[in-house]
């Protein structure tokens, strides 16, 4: 039981990393990026190409891939998403859905439907684990993912609360028109947010590739887990997403204790329960607005 919870936290940290960019983009631009999972998988493929081409370790390969992902996020915002945002609430959803299909098919075209993993090329990182006491084990990769998750969320929080650039991002998220009138270039604030989101998604893709296998159509599954983490934690709240990811991970491993087939299911159940409770909350808020 204790071990299941601990493993759930390690798994949840992975979901939290996956969900971070999704949460940021929703919080800043109110975009639900349906291509988020595919962008993570795209990141994994870029790291794969670098690792296969140079023989670097996947972690170093990721550092090399990072500028590519940041540039990709910037360009994605300034081209596709900016246009989509101007034409209503539904258009970004459709645009990112289309982007998801485009990424999947480009990956299929380039890499075939074969399954890949970076686990083997990462050496001891993916195989090492320590027995602490009783049945409790700490896998090296799980520990690294958890540490990275805490660092990513902490750094993002510091950026948003302590730097002028972060204040501008929060200001633009609250009221883009007023931000423009205060001299803030909202286009570039949005582009910066998307660049950060895409970079962290690629980090999620790296962890996916290290801990298991991926193929060109792995994205949507990852999107579902990331989306569940965001909703469980509360839409638009960054720390909430971290906690939501951890809760999702623990729910899955506890479900797997009962029956290995219940792993994903128990995560979905937690998601549904939160969604139902929240519906009550929305109704309450509407009543309050009327009063």
């Amino acid at each position, binding site marked *: 039981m204790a071990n299941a919870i601990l493993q759930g936290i390690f798994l949840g940290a992975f979901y939290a990393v996956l969900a971070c960019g999704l949460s940021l983009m929703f919080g800043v631009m109110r975009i639900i990026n349906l291509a988020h999972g595919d962008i993570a998988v795209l990141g994994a493929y870029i790291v794969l190409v670098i690792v296969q081409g140079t023989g670097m370790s996947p972690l170093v390969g990721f550092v090399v891939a990072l500028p590519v992902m940041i540039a990709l996020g910037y360009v994605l915002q300034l081209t596709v998403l900016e246009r989509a945002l101007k034409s209503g609430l539904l258009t970004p959803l459709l645009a990112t859905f289309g982007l998801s299909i485009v990424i999947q098919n480009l990956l299929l075209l380039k890499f075939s439907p074969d399954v890949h993993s970076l686990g083997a090329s990462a050496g001891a990182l993916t195989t090492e684990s320590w027995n602490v006491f009783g049945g409790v084990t700490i896998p090296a990769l799980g520990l690294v993912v958890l540490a990275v998750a805490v660092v990513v969320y902490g750094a993002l929080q510091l950026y948003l609360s302590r730097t*002028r650039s972060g*204040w*501008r991002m*929060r*200001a633009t998220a*609250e*009221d883009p*028109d*007023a*931000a*423009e*009138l*205060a*001299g*803030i*270039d*909202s286009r570039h604030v949005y582009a910066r947010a998307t660049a950060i989101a895409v970079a962290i998604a690629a980090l999620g893709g790296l962890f996916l590739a290290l801990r298991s296998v991926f193929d060109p159509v792995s994205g949507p599954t990852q999107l579902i887990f990331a989306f569940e983490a965001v909703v469980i934690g509360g839409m638009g709240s960054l720390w909430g997403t971290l906690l939501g990811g951890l809760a999702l991970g623990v729910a899955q491993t506890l479900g797997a204790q009962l029956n290995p087939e219940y792993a994903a299911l128990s995560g979905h159940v937690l998601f549904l329960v939160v969604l139902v409770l929240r519906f009550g909350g929305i109704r309450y808020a509407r009543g309050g607005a009327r009063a």
Partner: protein
Amino acid sequence: MSLLQVEALDCRYGLLQAVRGVSFEVDEGETVALIGANGAGKTTLLRAIAGAHQPHAGRVTFAGADITRLPAHTRVRRGIALVPEGRRLFAGLTVEENLRVATSSRGGTRWSVQKVLDVFPFLKERLHMPAATLSGGEQQAVAIGRALMTSPRLLLLDEASLGLAPVAVDAVYRSLADVIREGTTVLLVEQDLTRALEVAGRVICMLEGRVVLEGDAGTLDRERIVSAYFGLRRAAAGGG
């Protein structure tokens, strides 16, 4: 040469035409009051000058350059700042963050948080509180402070006294006098005619999207302004 030139400006919201062929100029260092009844097009005109509303036709020239197509944040860098109607503070940010997000115009560092606090001393103890927790008058001070932080050459004020207690209105106008003394050009929308005539050197009166009267605050006779304000025929014939 005038600092701001507005030429034949037309602004529309769908089929509704809010501003119709408005032309006027503002010289550097002037304080001009834009008056008129609700729906006369004053707010739209200010927003078009600040870049928050894209005009349908016409031209806006600032410091000799055509800025009609520039986005709002670029105009801020050139020296135009709007204190928008309803203040539009960033509610989740603290007072200090609200002030410091505003970008300063190129080379212009005339204003700092300290200097804003000199003008609005009562903000000092509110500096680290979220803007949402402030009173209306304090929020208006932050909104003006945020605009000043961009070190504007032209300050546009939209209904700075709306919804404020008389004491707060006095504080706002006292600080405005400081700003004007600094040499900042001010174009303000004000419902309170007495206030407008006190602070402004020149008055522009709008009615149904048109300029119907324009003249020096000292020489215009009050009755004529009131007639123009409400669109009585006598003033419409005399104005322009």
